[in-house]
């Protein structure tokens, strides 16, 4: 479904702020698989998601999605195939528009927008159903501006918007990191429901080792712009949060070793 062929991205090349965010990442995602991505800060996990979404063009490599070569497609063109939920609950919705206006925008994701009336009777009826299923009491507040809602409510709505038209690929970028624990649980519940019901191919970045261990059918661990581990099948199912923490500890030790080794060499030879 999604095929990444050794993609690389360097930000601010040739300056002191040069960051090699992605260093030849390759990944092959089967249709319907739910891949969790974890990694240290700055490991490139969000950059990987943005590369797929088309926020920027990659320097090298190819991105194929649903049988199409999308490497050179601009962000808004890829949106036809991709649904997204961002880390920041404010990023996914338009605050001054009402709930129903936001949803009606999502109902035409990647389609032509003309002078047709945005809020058709049948569409609003479906909105009331679907928003009601969120169990947040929002179905009677469809005409309220989204700006008046809490982060959890907005994130639940963003998820609904991202999946209103079935996307070929769902991108979740730490979409519960900014929420309080209760809202985070609720949004994770909703995520699990929609991903399993619609059999969505999903890439999900998370900070939570608990989510990483309990969700998805494949887990990728990133470090310094590369994929370090790739757990699938039975191996993924056996993973516990403690195992993942142990892996992070390994990375930390390896880093320290690198540094002290460099120091030792410097002392001896310089």
């Amino acid at each position, binding site marked *: 479904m999604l095929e990444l062929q050794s993609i690389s991205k360097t930000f601010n090349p040739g300056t002191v702020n040069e960051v090699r965010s992605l260093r030849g990442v390759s990944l092959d995602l089967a249709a319907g698989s739910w891949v969790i991505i974890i990694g240290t800060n700055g490991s490139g996990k969000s950059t990987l998601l943005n590369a797929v979404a088309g926020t920027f063009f990659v320097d090298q490599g190819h991105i194929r999605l649903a049988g199409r070569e999308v490497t050179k497609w601009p962000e*808004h063109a890829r949106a036809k195939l991709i649904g997204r939920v961002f880390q920041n609950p404010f990023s996914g919705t338009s605050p001054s528009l009402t709930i129903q206006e936001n949803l009606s925008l999502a109902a035409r994701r990647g389609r032509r927008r003309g002078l047709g*009336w*945005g809020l058709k009777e049948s569409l609003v009826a479906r909105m009331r159903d679907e928003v009601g299923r969120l169990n947040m009491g929002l179905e009677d507040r469809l005409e309220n501006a989204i700006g008046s809602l809490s982060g959890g409510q907005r994130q639940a709505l963003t998820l609904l918007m991202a999946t209103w038209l079935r996307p070929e690929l769902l991108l979740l970028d730490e979409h519960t990191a900014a929420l309080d624990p209760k809202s985070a649980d609720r949004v994770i519940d909703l995520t699990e429901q929609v991903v399993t019901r619609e059999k969505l191919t999903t890439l999900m970045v998370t900070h939570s080792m608990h989510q990483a261990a309990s969700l998805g059918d494949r887990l990728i661990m990133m470090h310094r712009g590369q994929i370090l581990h790739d757990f699938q099948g039975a191996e993924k199912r056996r993973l516990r949060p403690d195992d993942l923490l142990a892996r992070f500890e390994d990375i930390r030790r390896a880093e320290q070793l690198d540094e002290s080794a460099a120091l030792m060499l410097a002392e001896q030879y310089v």
Partner: protein
Amino acid sequence: MNLLIGTFTIGCILSLLALGVFISFRIFAFPDITADGSITLGAAVAATLMVRGVSPLLASLAGFVAGMLAGATTGTLFTRFKINPLLSGILVMTALYSINLHIMGKSNVPLLTVTTLATQSERVGVQLMGGATSFNLAGWDVSVRDASVLVAVALVVALTGVLLYVFLRTNLGMAMRATGDNVQMIRALGVNDANMVVFGVAISNGLVALSGALLAQYQGFADVGMGIGMVVWGLASVIIGEALVGTNQVGLTIVGAVMGSVLFRLLVAVALRWGLSPNDLKLITAVFVFFALVIPRFLRKKRLRNAHA
């Protein structure tokens, strides 16, 4: 009384300017000062066409289209060539000064002997009144010409307002509003935000130019200098409108912009009556907008400080 009617008429005409400024400044948060040039452009195109014998309605629509082209140019400078929005507007506005002179062929085109929307509505008005040239309204003597022009202008503004309201609730219009609100989201929903900005600034300047076309017909001439300071004027109207009706609903904000424009014109008329020199008008307007922008922020800070204390 006739003075009052004239004030209302100009207020209504300039409310189209206010609607244009509302679209660029408020919906897109795009500080577009092309308007100073495009209001003259609308006047120049309409006046020149009418002098050549084109029907006033067609000439006004041509002014609208010319304004849209100017706005699209500004939008393109910003989106395609990544020029700062203010500078994009300044460039197009400056270029328009020469273009307007070329269109008119001189710095001022009089319309006193030409059929305009004003003379047409006067004729209809006189016919409806059975040939009378003035009538009595609550003890005041009102000229039929002035009254019928006001009614005609009010109809145009009402129609434009309704069309704009409907448009902003279509799929395309909602995508435009969301573009100004949250670019990241609208891209993720598959909208080319650059196109939206170009189109939105085009509509904005189309309305501004239409306002200029009507203004030229009302005052009886188009002048190359008539656009100076008009953006600030429109902004003042929008700010007053927001103070009157708030910013929560699109429909209300449109009504607010129109009300703000009329009210602002009324304030200006009163100030002039009290002896304010017309030379100081733009200075006073600028100072007014300054305070209108600063005071809300000042009040908010004060409220925050009180809340903490």
